[in-house]
């Protein structure tokens, strides 16, 4: 049947820019972002939705992009770590992660910041417990999490 396709045309917005692409059905959204759009910031860790390194925001909600097919993102609005800095200026979250030592090796950081961004968008004044729950799906092996939680808390408090 014609409607069953191995390659599909999709249109989506990533960090405010519209893209039209033809993608294989078996391509994940993660690989689409990294290999087609050359947005290498999003990281691939476990590839099975456990580590959160590939977390992005899709239609306002965080998802692990390794478990989403690119074709499922047809019509979606997506934010990745590349959309954080504006006009050469790091975002408040990025600055806080640096200031509080929330980054060491950096591998979890893009996904961690996306989870933090989505949390602050839906809950501008989260408690420490709510921050912990929001980033529970983002594994960090370096920091012990406390500096990350401090960084997110600092931005939440300063948000006007």
């Amino acid at each position, binding site marked *: *049947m014609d*409607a*069953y*396709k*191995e390659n*599909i045309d999709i249109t989506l917005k990533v960090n405010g820019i519209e893209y039209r692409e033809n993608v*294989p*059905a*078996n391509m*994940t959204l993660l690989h689409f972002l990294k290999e087609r759009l050359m947005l290498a910031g999003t990281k691939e860790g476990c*590839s*099975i*939705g*456990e580590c*959160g390194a590939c*977390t992005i925001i899709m239609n306002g*909600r*965080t*998802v*692990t992009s*390794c*478990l*989403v*097919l690119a*074709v*499922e993102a047809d019509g979606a609005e997506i934010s990745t770590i590349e959309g954080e800095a504006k006009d050469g200026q790091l975002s408040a979250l990025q600055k806080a992660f640096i200031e509080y030592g929330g980054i060491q090796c950096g591998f979890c950081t893009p996904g961690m910041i996306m*989870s933090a961004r989505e949390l602050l968008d839906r809950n501008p004044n989260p408690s420490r417990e709510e921050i912990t*729950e*929001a980033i*529970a*799906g983002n594994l960090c092996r370096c920091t012990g999490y406390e500096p990350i939680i401090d960084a997110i808390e600092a931005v939440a408090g300063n948000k006007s």
Partner: protein
Amino acid sequence: MIKQFTYFKPGTLAEALAALQTEGSIALAGGTDLLVELRGGVKSVDLVVDLKGLPKLTELSTTPDNTISIGAGVDLNFLVDHGKIREFCPVLSEAAYSIATYQLRNRATLGGNICNASPAADMAPPLFVLDAVVVAAGPDGERRIPIFKFFTGVKRTSLKRSEIVVRVEIPPVPKAKMAFLKKQRIKGHDLAAINMAGLADSGSGTLRISIGACAVTPIMLKGTDQLYRENRDVEKLAEEVAALAVNSIKPIDDLRATAEYRRDMAAVFAKRLVRKICA
């Protein structure tokens, strides 16, 4: 990494059911189980039928007789947050919240959790105690399957090849007390070693307890109503329900727990549940 397949996103139920008659086809909902299985080569498919284009699958409604109808495609965070669910079936919200992580709950669906049919499916025990009905749609129309007849084995359900679950109906719930308990090694990063849901309504003398991950399917304890009506003392009731739980399960040793540990925890959880909902 994932073997090539064709993709189809039907806009109507009829198109979806027709596509699912194709040999080698599979339904895609949230994808949090399916994509892992495709990547690992556990499953090999020729056609993925994405159900997210079917609008009715994400609806939640209440009928005039107060039956709550939950579309199979609603995601778990929707159930965590939904006011009506939190008010009338909090055990569903609690179980949903216990599953995986925030990002995964944004994708994983109620229908997917039960159709995947893991013996440890966390949404199953709450649906058992709520006496839910699974509504499946197939080429011959809709079929209503009581939840206790839905699971038939490990990763097996009573769904036919070309049927999909379209919604789950929760009959009117009395103002009962409910609770959900779950033992896992690491919150959010492991499946349940054992999970248990309970519902107690003192008015009608109803006590329902369901246990997961301790047999090939989630199970419902039989005879709890009678124990509930016979026992005025909660501690005595707790002991008797615990003994019933241990005798009703058929746990195995696996990577999450030994059978012995599961039997011990079944008794601990049963007592905890009874104290919580029958006191």
